[in-house]
């Protein structure tokens, strides 16, 4: 059962799940299939979904970035601060994107130059960026952004049920999907995720790659901050609190391996739709929101258990076919047979 095939299978499962949820939604709520509802549905998790895309690349490359939610907040805060100070958005937006890049680069440098575990580094910058956001904007909220800005944040592309932010998500998904699956940069990402040392010995510029991935993650988080500000027509320092968990959840649910080396962008997109539709259905059916988190948690665990059980089932069947005693040390026997003699 090769990785590729397993992932494809997982994406199939997700697709089926989405369809099933849509069916449920359609039966329990008359308005579910309405155009409006689609735009609500796709708008609900926009920022999370957008941040999930670069996060997928980062995790595939064997790292993780917990600081995205804080970077979103920082970008919100700075944008709001500048706007309140009378700085026009066409200056403000590039500024926060640059800040995003710098923040991401900081993560990247700490991980590559100082060889620190990204889990801890970004745990630190998670607090750091959030703190800076609060320092910049303090308790106040900034609003009264120009019409065009809030329209872009909340309204649909004229004549379609597609919200503007979703367009950005779609574009980003296509671009990153293309890079990951069709270019050698993507191949390098997988190589680094599966065997850093071999990649380095093969002339892959590991540090540069990771640095750019963290920077990308930072920029996109800042972009998500801009969208967040536009969508809610206001900027706050506490924007996006708790989003990182959802981002990571979407990525893992999409079949990306937490240890790196495996995962696809389509998987992540499907995972986003799964959660979006689920949440929408639950809200429409006026079910208490805790169902959302219960279902999410269950899904997340199943996303690993199902393929695992499937594989163990396969082994069990083989084992029964040629009745033999299970190996006392729980690994898959074949691996050891190969490993044993080859280990040098």
């Amino acid at each position: 059962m090769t990785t590729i095939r397993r992932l494809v299978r997982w994406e199939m499962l997700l697709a089926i799940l989405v369809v099933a949820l849509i069916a449920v939604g359609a039966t329990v709520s008359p308005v579910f299939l309405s155009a409006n509802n689609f735009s609500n549905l796709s708008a609900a998790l926009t920022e999370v979904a957008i941040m999930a895309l670069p996060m997928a690349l980062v995790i595939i490359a064997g790292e993780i970035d917990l600081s995205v939610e804080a970077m979103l907040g920082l970008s919100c805060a700075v944008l709001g601060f500048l706007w309140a100070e009378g700085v026009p958005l066409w200056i403000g937006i590039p500024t926060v994107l640059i800040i995003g890049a710098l923040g991401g680069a900081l993560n990247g440098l700490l991980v590559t130059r100082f060889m620190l575990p990204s889990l801890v580094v970004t745990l630190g910058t998670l607090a750091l960026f959030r703190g800076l956001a609060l320092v910049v904007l303090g308790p106040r909220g900034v609003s009264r952004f120009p019409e065009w800005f809030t329209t872009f944040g909340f309204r649909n592309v004229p004549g379609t049920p597609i919200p503007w932010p979703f367009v950005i998500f779609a574009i980003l998904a296509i671009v990153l999907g293309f890079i990951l699956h069709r270019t050698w940069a993507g191949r390098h990402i997988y190589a680094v995720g599966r065997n850093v040392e071999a990649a380095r010995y093969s002339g892959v510029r590991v540090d540069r790659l990771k640095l750019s991935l963290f920077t990308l993650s930072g920029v996109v988080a800042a972009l998500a901050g801009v969208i967040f500000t536009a969508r809610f027509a206001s900027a706050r320092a506490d924007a996006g609190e708790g989003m990182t968990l959802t981002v990571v959840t979407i990525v893992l649910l999409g079949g990306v391996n937490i240890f790196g080396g495996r995962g696809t962008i389509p998987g992540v997109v499907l995972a986003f739709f799964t959660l979006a539709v689920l949440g929408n259905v639950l809200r429409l059916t006026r079910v208490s929101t805790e169902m959302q988190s219960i279902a999410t948690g269950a899904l997340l665990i199943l996303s690993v258990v199902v393929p695992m059980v499937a594989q163990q089932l396969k082994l069990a069947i083989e084992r029964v076919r040629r009745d033999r005693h299970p190996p006392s040390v729980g690994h898959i026997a074949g691996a050891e047979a190969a490993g044993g003699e080859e280990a040098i």
Partner: protein
Amino acid sequence: MSRHLGWAATFVGAAMLVASVPVVAQDASMEPAAACTPSDPPLSVIFIPKQVNNPYFDAAATGAQTAADELCGEFSQVGPQNANAAEQVPFITDATTQAPSAIAIAADGPDEVVPSLTAAMEQGVKVVGYDSSPAAGAYDVFVNQVDFSGVGVLLADWACELAPDCTGEIAVLSAAETAPNQNAWIALMTDTLANDAKYANLDLVTTVYGNDDPQDSATQAQGLLQTYPDLKVIVAPTTVGILAAAQVVKQQGSDVKVTGLGFPNDMREYVKDGISPVFGLWSVPDLGYLTYYIASLLVDGTITGAEGETFTVPNLGDYTIGPDSVVTLGPAFRFDASNIDEFNF
């Protein structure tokens, strides 16, 4: 092996079960209202509180339900787990697509909800704000739970009353730094303290924020007691804060007094043991009742929300719509040892 499979199976089963709950629950929530003739189209109001796990809004909901039964309308309440605008907005948009007669909203942030509420109004859904207001223009009517300026003055009064000889340090324990009501009340209170000679000797030393979270509020209250040894009164214009403060004071055995806004049920024992001899609030169920009632009036066109319109609400009395289409429930109600036992919410 088979053990694992068994476990996995049970787990999947459990998940299925959980997943199936929504449908059931939804059937339950669709129960038709009391036996009376619904209007056509039937009146339906969706309440979206700041958060669903908050006794304050559940108290309001009871009032709204009463109104719904009387008016033969539908009432339902949905909302986010945490008081967070980002989580609240999807509930607004999804409520809108269901095309109810009206939406009643307690905004998690005045501006965040504006786009979604405006969209709702564009689609002919009436919007009634209650408890905490969306920015003006994003609602048809806002039901103010209490006369704001009144609260400011009352808070000052109570502080003065509790501080020996109306002198000494007082501090404010508020909700979130971003909570509009609290900020408004605190502002008015500060004015009153500054401009009325009567309060000349009261020294408002600081304002801290407990984010309407029991733990944070407790920690902040701790901090106050430590930082200001001479503190006389803690003023907490938030139901969570006042309770936390009272608890801390009791635990520390400090002689600081606590006042502000709180639930009779929470504060009863502290009123009795003199930690918080006096505090205030309004009748929360009445707030829900009035909100639902106004929604119905907007729907059947009796009122439009224009300034100066007047109307009468059974069991509550006559109301006039003020500037910014604000209706005020009434003055804050003072609780003390004399009356605390008469209330239960």
